[in-house]
C-alpha cells in the first residue's frame, strides 16, 4: 500500500502557499483517491454514494466529488478500516439526549490530524511552544472515558503549549488568583490562550465584566473555536467579541477557528482581517440548500467541507448544517492563498431558500 508514503508527502504541502490551479491539482487528486478508497473499504458509504450516482460525473472537479450529510455520522457507524485498527473514537459534544457523531480513528488518520494541525498552528504562533492558558477546567481532560470534541480540542492544542495552566476550577468558576500567578510568571513573553468560544465568553469575559476586574494579557494570542451557537442569546458578533476581549483582557491577537470533529486537524483559521482560510489540506464549497447546486462566490448557502485527513472513516467530503459564503480566493489582504470565507449561522436559524445574495435585502 502506498498510503503511508502519500500521507508523508501530504504533510509537506505549503500551508497557504498554493493558489487556485496549483491547489486543485494536488487536492483534487487526493480527494479522488480518498473517495475511491472509502467506496472500496466502507460498504455503507459506497451504497449511499452509489445511490446518489455522483460518479456519473467522474470527479472532474472538486465540485463533483461526492459529499454526504454530516448528520450521517450520528445515525450510522461509518468506518473504512477493521475494528482492530481503531485506536480512538471521538464524539461530538451534543447535549444530553441528542445523538452524537462517532468518528473512528486509526493510527494514520490520528497522525495526520496532529501533523496538519501543527502546520496550521505554526503559521499563527510560530514554531516555538508558548506558555499556555486554557480557558476550561482540568476535569475536562481528565475524563478519558468520554472523549468529547472539547477534550480533543484542548489536548490537540496543548501540544503547542508548555507549562499549561487551567483558568477555571472544576465547577467552571474563574480562579483569578491562579490566572494572575500564571500571568506574572510569564510576564513579557507571548502566551497562548486557548478555549472554546462560548467558554471564553461566559466564564472569562462575562465573569470579569460582572465583577469589574481586568487581567492584562498583553502580547497573548487567543485561539478559540467551537461555534457561536450558544452566544446567539447574548447577540454578540465576532467584532464585538474581539472588542470586549480587548477591553477586559488586553488581548489584541484573537483568532477564531472553524472546524468539525468529523475533520479534526484541518481547521480553518481566521486571519488578522477576520476571514476564515482554507489551508492546503482543506477547502469549502457553498451549496444551495434546495438542490445542492454550487453557489457563486459571495452568495450564502450550505457549507460543504473537504479534508484530506480522514482515512479511517468516509469524512473527507461532508455537507454541514452551517451556512456561509465564500469571500474570495487567493487575494486576501493577509497574503494567504486559497479560499477564504465567513460562517453566518446554522441552517435551523437561517431563513435562506437557495443561494442568496448578502446585499439584496
Amino acid at each position: 500500500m502506498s498510503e503511508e508514503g502519500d500521507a508523508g508527502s501530504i504533510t509537506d504541502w505549503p500551508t497557504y502557499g498554493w493558489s487556485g490551479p496549483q491547489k486543485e491539482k494536488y487536492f483534487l487528486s487526493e480527494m479522488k483517491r480518498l473517495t475511491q478508497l472509502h467506496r472500496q473499504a466502507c460498504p455503507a458509504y459506497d451504497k449511499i454514494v452509489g445511490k446518489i450516482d455522483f460518479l456519473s460525473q467522474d470527479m472532474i472537479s472538486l465540485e463533483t466529488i461526492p459529499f454526504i450529510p454530516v448528520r450521517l455520522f450520528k445515525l450510522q457507524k461509518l468506518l473504512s478500516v477493521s475494528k482492530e485498527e481503531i485506536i480512538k473514537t471521538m464524539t461530538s459534544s451534543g447535549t444530553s439526549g441528542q445523538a452524537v457523531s462517532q468518528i473512528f480513528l486509526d493510527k494514520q488518520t490520528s497522525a495526520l490530524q496532529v501533523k496538519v494541525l501543527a502546520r496550521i498552528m505554526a503559521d499563527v504562533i510560530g514554531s516555538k511552544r508558548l506558555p499556555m492558558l486554557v480557558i476550561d477546567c482540568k476535569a475536562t481532560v481528565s475524563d478519558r472515558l468520554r472523549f468529547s470534541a472539547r477534550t480533543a480540542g484542548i489536548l490537540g492544542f496543548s501540544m503547542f503549549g508548555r507549562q499549561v495552566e487551567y483558568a477555571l476550577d472544576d465547577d467552571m468558576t474563574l480562579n483569578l488568583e491562579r490566572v494572575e500567578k500564571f500571568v506574572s510568571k510569564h510576564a513579557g513573553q507571548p502566551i497562548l490562550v486557548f478555549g472554546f468560544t462560548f467558554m471564553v465568553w461566559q466564564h472569562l469575559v462575562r465573569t470579569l465584566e460582572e465583577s469589574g476586574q481586568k487581567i492584562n494579557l498583553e502580547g497573548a494570542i487567543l485561539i478559540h473555536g467551537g461555534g457561536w451557537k450558544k452566544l446567539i442569546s447574548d447577540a454578540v458578533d465576532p467584532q464585538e467579541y474581539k472588542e470586549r476581549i480587548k477591553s477586559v483582557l488586553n488581548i489584541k491577537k484573537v483568532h477564531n477557528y472553524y472546524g468539525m470533529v468529523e475533520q479534526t486537524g484541518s481547521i480553518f483559521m481566521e486571519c488578522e482581517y477576520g476571514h476564515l482560510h482554507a489551508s492546503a489540506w482543506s477547502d469549502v464549497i457553498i451549496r444551495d440548500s434546495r438542490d445542492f447546486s454550487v453557489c457563486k462566490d459571495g452568495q450564502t448557502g450550505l457549507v460543504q467541507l473537504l479534508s484530506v485527513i480522514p482515512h479511517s472513516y468516509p469524512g473527507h467530503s461532508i455537507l454541514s448544517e452551517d451556512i456561509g459564503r465564500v469571500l474570495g480566493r487567493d487575494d486576501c489582504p493577509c497574503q494567504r492563498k486559497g479560499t477564504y470565507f465567513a460562517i453566518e449561522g446554522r441552517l435551523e436559524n437561517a431563513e435562506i431558500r437557495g443561494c442568496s445574495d448578502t446585499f439584496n435585502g
Partner: protein
Amino acid sequence: MNNKEKYDQAFIESFSVEADALNENLTYQSIAEWDSVGHMGLIAALEDAFDIMMDTEDIIEFGSYTIGIDIMKKYKVEI
C-alpha cells in the same frame, strides 16, 4: 539518578507501568495509559526531569520508548 533512571521514572510515573515493561514494545497507544492525555503528561514529566523544552515536531514523533531515546539526544540528553 542518572539519565536512564530519570527517563524510566518518567514513564513509570506517567503510565503506572512496571520497569520490565520499558522496552521497544512500549509504543504510543500500546497501553491504555499512553493515549493523548498520557502523552502530554509524559512530555511534561521528561521536560521537568531534564529541564528541556521539546519542539512540537518532536512531541509528535515521540512514538515509543525507544524512539524517545533518540529524540532526547537532540536535547543533549544521553540515555
